[in-house]
C-alpha cells in the first residue's frame, strides 16, 4: 500500500561536500519498505521544481517509525532538500517500485553488494535484511575520491565486509569498482551480485556477470514523473525490443532483463 504522507524531519546531516543523510518520520513506509524500493519526495509546494524527486530508501527503523534517505546535491531539487532542518515537514510518497529479491537458497549463500558513488544509497537497507537472513555479505564500494565515501562505518557495524576503490587511489584500491569485483572473483569466490550506480558501471557489471555466469540484480535510474506507472516516462529497453518501466517493473531488474 503506497501512502502519501507528510513526515517530520528528525535530522538532515551533511556527510561530505555533496552528500547528505536525512532522517524523517514516516511510520507506514518504515514498516512496509523492502530493500531497493524508493520514495518520491516533493521538495517544494511551488512549481519550481514541479516534479517529485525519486530517492532510494537508505535505511529504515520500523520501531522508531523513521526512514533514512542518502542523497547527493546535484541540482535544484536536491539542493532544496539540503535546506530542510529538523522539525520541518516533508511530503513523501512511497514505498514505490519493486526492490531486490532476497536469496531464498541455503544459508551459506553469499551476497556481493556493488555500489558506485551515490549508488551506495539502497545498499544499507539491503545489507540489513541480508545479515538478518544470515546471508554472508560483502560490500564493494567505489567512488571518485576518499572524501566522497560515506557510511562505511554503518556497513561495518552490521558485520558486512567492506572493500573500497577510488578513481584517484585516495582510499582503498585505485581503479573502479567493477575491476575490484573482477579481482575478487579471480580468487575463485562467487555469490549473487546486487548493484547500484551509474549506468556505465552497471553496463560493465552486466557483461562481467554474463561472462562469469553469476546472477546479478541491478538497481536502475531513469527520469521519472509519476513514479506510479502512469506516465510511462521511465522506460528502459529490454532485449528483443520494447520497454519496461523503472518505477513499477523496477528499479531493480535482473541483469538479463534490461538493455543498458
Amino acid at each position, binding site marked *: 500500500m503506497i501512502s502519501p504522507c507528510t513526515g517530520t524531519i528528525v535530522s538532515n546531516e551533511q556527510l561530505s561536500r555533496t552528500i547528505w543523510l536525512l532522517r524523517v518520520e514516516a511510520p507506514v513506509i518504515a514498516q512496509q519498505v523492502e530493500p531497493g524500493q524508493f520514495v518520491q519526495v516533493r521538495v517544494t509546494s511551488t*512549481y519550481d521544481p*514541479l*516534479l*517529485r524527486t525519486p530517492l532510494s530508501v537508505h535505511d529504515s527503523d520500523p520501531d522508531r517509525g523513521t526512514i533514512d534517505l542518502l542523497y547527493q546535491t546535484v541540482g535544484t531539487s536536491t539542493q532544496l532538500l539540503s535546506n530542510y532542518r529538523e522539525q520541518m515537514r516533508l511530503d513523501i510518497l512511497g514505498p514505490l517500485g519493486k526492490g531486490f529479491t532476497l536469496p531464498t537458497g541455503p544459508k551459506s549463500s553469499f551476497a556481493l553488494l556493488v555500489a558506485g558513488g551515490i549508488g551506495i544509497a539502497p545498499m544499507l537497507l539491503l545489507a540489513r535484511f541480508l545479515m538478518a537472513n544470515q546471508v554472508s555479505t560483502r560490500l564493494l564500494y567505489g567512488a571518485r575520491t576518499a572524501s566522497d565515501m560515506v557510511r562505511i562505518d554503518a556497513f561495518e557495524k552490521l558485520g558486512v565486509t567492506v572493500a573500497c576503490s577510488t578513481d584517484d587511489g585516495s582510499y582503498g584500491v585505485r581503479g573502479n569498482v567493477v575491476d575490484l569485483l573482477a579481482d575478487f572473483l579471480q580468487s575463485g569466490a562467487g555469490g549473487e551480485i546486487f548493484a547500484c550506480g551509474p549506468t556505465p558501471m552497471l553496463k560493465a557489471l552486466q557483461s562481467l556477470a554474463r561472462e562469469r555466469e553469476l546472477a546479478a540484480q541491478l538497481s536502475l535510474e*531513469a527520469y521519472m*514523473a509519476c513514479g*506510479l506507472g502512469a506516465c*510511462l516516462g521511465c*522506460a528502459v529497453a529490454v532485449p528483443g525490443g520494447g520497454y519496461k518501466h523503472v518505477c513499477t517493473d523496477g528499479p531493480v531488474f535482473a541483469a538479463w532483463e534490461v538493455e543498458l
Partner: protein
Amino acid sequence: MVVDLSVSIGSLQLKNPVLTASGTFGYGLEFRRFGNLGALGGVVVKGTTLQPRAGNKPQRIVETAAGMLNSIGLENPGVDFFLTHYLPQLRDLGVTTIVNLAGNTIDEYCQLAERLQQPGIAALELNISCPNVKAGGMAFGTSEEVVYQVVQAVRRHTKLPLIVKLSPNVTDIAAIARAAEAAGADAISLINTLLGMAVDIRTRRPILGNVVGGLSGPAIKPVALRMVWQVAQAVKVPIIGMGGIMTASDAIEFLLCGASAVQIGAANFVEPTTAWRVIDGIAEYLEQQGIASVRELIGSLQI
C-alpha cells in the same frame, strides 16, 4: 448548503466537472489507492491504438520551468488488451470511463471507434494531435479540412458521445473547433500539449530521445485559458478545458472562460490526489460564494 456539481457534456451526464487527462492517470487503476475513482467526473484513459505500441526511445521526459516535456510516443498495449484487461475492472469500480483514441489514418480511428462501442465506455475522446501518415506525418488536428474529414468519419462509426481533443499547435484554434463541431463532435476538449524542446549544453544534444516533445503543466495554463475562451466564443457544443490545472481555483478559471468540465493532467504526477482535491475545492468555492450549481459558473466571465 448542498451544492450541485453535476454537469452535462452533450448526452453525457457527469457527477462533477473534474476528469483526469489522457496519459497522465494511466488506466485509473494506478491511482485507486489514493481515492474512489467512481467519485471522479470521469477518467480519460491513455491514448489507445489498434495495435500495441512500444513508444519512443528514452529519454522521454524532462522537467522545464513550471512544466515538463514528454515524448512518450503513445506507448499502449492496444485496444484489445484494453477491452479484456482494463475495461472490466473500470466497469466494476463504477468509473465513468472515456477512451482516448489515437490513429495514423482515418480508417484506424474508425475501426477503433467501432471496437470501443462497448458497455462501460461512457464516451470517446478523439486525439487528433497524431501524425497523419497519408499526409506526410502532419498532425490531423492542424488542418480544418482534415479535422472535418476525420471527425465526420468517426461520427458515422459510433453512437457514443464524441469529444474531439484539439491540438494547440495551430494558427486559428477557433476555426479548427468550428470544423470539429460542423462534422458532428458532441464536445471539444483542449488543450493537448504544446510542442517544445530542451537542450543539454554539456553534450550539445537535445534532451529528449525524440528531440521534440509536448509541454504541459502550470507553464501552459495562460495559453490554455486563452484558447478555451476563444473556442467558447466560436462553438455551441460543450467544452472540456485543460492545461496546467493544479488547484480548484485554476479549474474555476477554466469554467469561467467557458469550459463545462476540466481535466487534470501533469498535476496527477505531482500530487496524486489532485483530482479529488479539485472537486472538493470547487464545492467549497460554490458554498462560500452562495452559488447553488457549478453550471452557473460556466462561461460567466465578465468582460
